[in-house]
């Protein structure tokens, strides 16, 4: 079960914020084009920073708590992190806008 820890944590982030899209009225998943144009530069820049830091030994990921698939040298969970966390932020931003627009 240990190897599911990081993925499980990301799953929790998705689960906790999903209601913001479904009942909170945040439109993020439903705008795939805007989602893609936002996420692509985030993944490239911050994923790139992460890759460089790992190559330079600034930090490293546990093999015990990750599934074992390491595309480009980062655990797949870490790549997913750069999708999941920005989506959480976008959903928060959208829901706050809705709250404000209501009379």
């Amino acid at each position, binding site marked *: 079960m240990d190897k599911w820890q990081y993925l499980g944590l990301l799953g929790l982030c998705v689960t906790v914020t999903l209601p913001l899209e479904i009942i909170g009225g945040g439109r993020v998943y439903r705008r795939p084009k*805007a989602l893609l144009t936002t996420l692509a530069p*985030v993944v490239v820049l911050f994923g790139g*920073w992460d890759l460089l830091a790992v190559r330079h030994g600034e*930090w*490293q990921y546990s093999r015990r708590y990750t599934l074992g698939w390491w595309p480009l040298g980062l655990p797949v969970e870490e790549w997913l992190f750069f999708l999941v966390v920005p989506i959480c932020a976008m959903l928060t931003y959208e829901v706050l806008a809705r709250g404000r627009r209501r009379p």
Partner: protein
Amino acid sequence: MTGSYTIAAACAPVLVVLLEVTVLRTGVLRRGRFWLTTAITLGFQVPVDGWLSKLSAPIVSYQARASSGVRWPWDIPVEDFGFGLAMIAFTLMLWERARLDSRDPGGRYGQAAGD
């Protein structure tokens, strides 16, 4: 003490702000909603990053030489908040840019007057 991560984490939010002011120009920095979202997201960074970086069973472990050694709250390297702040701010700027561009298919400023 500072390391390469300390320097990068201090510079990244500044670079993101410069990017907003010079290139993206979305105006989000003047919006309360941008700052509130950033605060909420960084608030949630504490439990998530706290779990990832805990010294008792680390999912990510940091080289002592690369960072300041200041780890708070729990075992989170303070540098992680610079990384988080830059990433969240950059995300919201791009998201806002995408929204503005989708409302303005004829060009960045073409229909601004009619909006």
